[in-house]
């Protein structure tokens, strides 16, 4: 049986949400930044423990905080992916309150934190920069190289089943 799960990508503008979806779904990447207006929806099926799961990925326009996001976009979500840009501190400096908002308003819905554009850092510096507790289980991805993108989406798909 094919199960469909709605996954919404959250985060500031320009952090690479669209690029992550393009890398995951279309195996493609472009350096060019094109702003997302509204929402684009894409689909990809992953297999978890022999079960096919269709991820309906909502790539919504970037906002400085979740409260500014259009509420109707978040209805019926099965998981959230909070994306920030490792090279722009303003995209993660309020991450604790953003995560608190998710926990408060979508208590039972799984989420993950993703530091994108990790190719701009070496591992040593990621550790130095992101040693706060909130980043403990974060994924550091690169839509450009594809690093960790598949893993992140597969693991969030797995979380929607538990």
């Amino acid at each position, binding site marked *: 049986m094919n199960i*469909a799960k*709605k996954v919404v990508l959250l985060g500031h*503008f*320009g952090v690479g949400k669209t690029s992550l979806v393009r890398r995951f779904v279309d195996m493609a990447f472009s350096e060019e*930044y*094109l*702003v997302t*207006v*509204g*929402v*684009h*929806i*894409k*689909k990809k099926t992953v297999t978890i423990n022999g079960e096919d799961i*269709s991820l*309906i990925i909502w790539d919504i*326009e*970037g906002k400085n905080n979740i409260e500014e996001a*259009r509420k*109707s*976009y978040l*209805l*019926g979500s099965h998981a959230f992916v909070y994306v920030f840009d490792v*090279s*722009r*501190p*303003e995209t993660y400096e309020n991450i604790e309150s953003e995560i608190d908002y998710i926990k408060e308003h979508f208590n039972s819905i799984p989420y993950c934190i993703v530091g994108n554009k990790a190719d701009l*850092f070496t591992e*040593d*510096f990621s550790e*130095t*920069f992101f040693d706060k507790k909130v980043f403990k289980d974060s994924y550091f991805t690169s839509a450009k190289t594809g690093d960790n993108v598949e893993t992140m989406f597969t693991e969030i798909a797995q979380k929607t089943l538990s």
Partner: protein
Amino acid sequence: MAYGNLKKQLFESRVQEIEISPKGEVVFSDNAIFNIPEKSTISDFHLFFELFPELLPSIKESIQFPCINIEIEGVKKIIDVEVIKKDKRYFLFFFDLTEHYENSQPIVQEKNEASIAKYKLDFEKKLLEAKEDFKNTFLANLNHEIRNPLNNLLGFLETLSASSLSYEQSELLKVAQKTGMQLKVLMEDLLDISKIEEGVLELKHVNFNLSTFMAAIYKHFQFKYSSDINFTVETDSKVHTALIGDPNRLHQILFNLLENAFQNTNQGSVSLTVVPSPKKAKAKSETMIRFIVKDTGKGLAKEKIKTVFDNYLQLEKEKLKPLGNGLGLKIVKNLVQLMNGTVVVESKIDVGTEFILDIPFTTRIPKKKAYKTKKIPGIYINKNILVIEDIKDNQMLYFKYFLNNDEAYIMNLAKDAEMAFSLLEKKRIDVIIAKTTIPDMDVFSFIDKVKEHPEESIRKTPIIVASGNSLLEFQNTLEEKEISNYLMKPFTKKELFKAIKESLNQ
């Protein structure tokens, strides 16, 4: 055409009405924008509606989904979707706002790009600072690791030079000593760079006389490079010479520039000229002095002038060239900046190079010379020096240093703190030399234990800490514990005995 018809036509072509059942089946569609066949399922129309039937029970009256990007058979539309629940029936309205949203896209794009560019610079700066911190810590640690073996190497070479050697052996030893000293200078340079860049290098403010200082510089280079190169040092009579500042660091700056000048000049001249600077000092109590180091050497190409102070770059690019000047020019720039001064370089290929420095110093009124009474030679009294050292090579080096010394120092060896206290309690010890890593106790606890000892004579014993640890924090902690001297490895016999003498005189 009747009034209102056009409006109706425009409106109708941009708004689509669809009715769906609670299970998501299409009951009716006017197909104004998209063709959605009746009896089909709305979930099959587009991904946006994929999970729609699940959502329907939660809708009370209506809900809006603005700005949905939908592409059907190559046609892209941006629509607002409104769902209205009436009498248990669900009505969907699509509003085609493609033009409106597409027009707003460039404005948002521009705004976002400007914001990203603004923060990008901040990030790059932050990343560079983090990399510098990492590099400096790495250098400091590396320095520490190298100092210990280097200390032994130089120490044994020094001891060897005092033994009976043939002419050839003696010459070879001189080369080995010179190479070792170069390594020591390079280590110190690296350390200085990391200290300056970390912002932990503190300048001294001590009285010094510029004339005496310049005379020493002249003597050093005249002696070192007594060749075909004409070397001159001139100080303008208008320059204030009674100064307060850091003569050691000024020496380091001028020493590096002159070394560089001599290294790059095969014939002609090297000069150091000191004149009042045309730049004004910030405070009344200060004077701005200009130092000009000029040579008639090979000069620098235009593109190299920009990177002349960045020796990391030079080391990287000119791998085939021997290190030669070490990291001197980078230190010059960093030190001059630390002293609130400036340095510029002018150079022409095959003509020569000129470094112009403007550095502020505090002025002072010179003191009248006090008459000193001559020291009368006296009788030497043995002094017991307690050395705490557990490594055999290091122990041997101390033995060699203290063997047949003219100062009447007698070395007492303890391999750990326990043995040290046993010796301290048994005999009179005049100075303790402790290492950082005493096997059974860390050096800070050892100092505390000495300073808190019930016997006053032990409490007051001067302590010298000999270490390769160059971290300022470590040295500050030692200073707080009021040790009498800090001996940085590698040290020579002369430096060791000087530290002992100073400690004895305290």
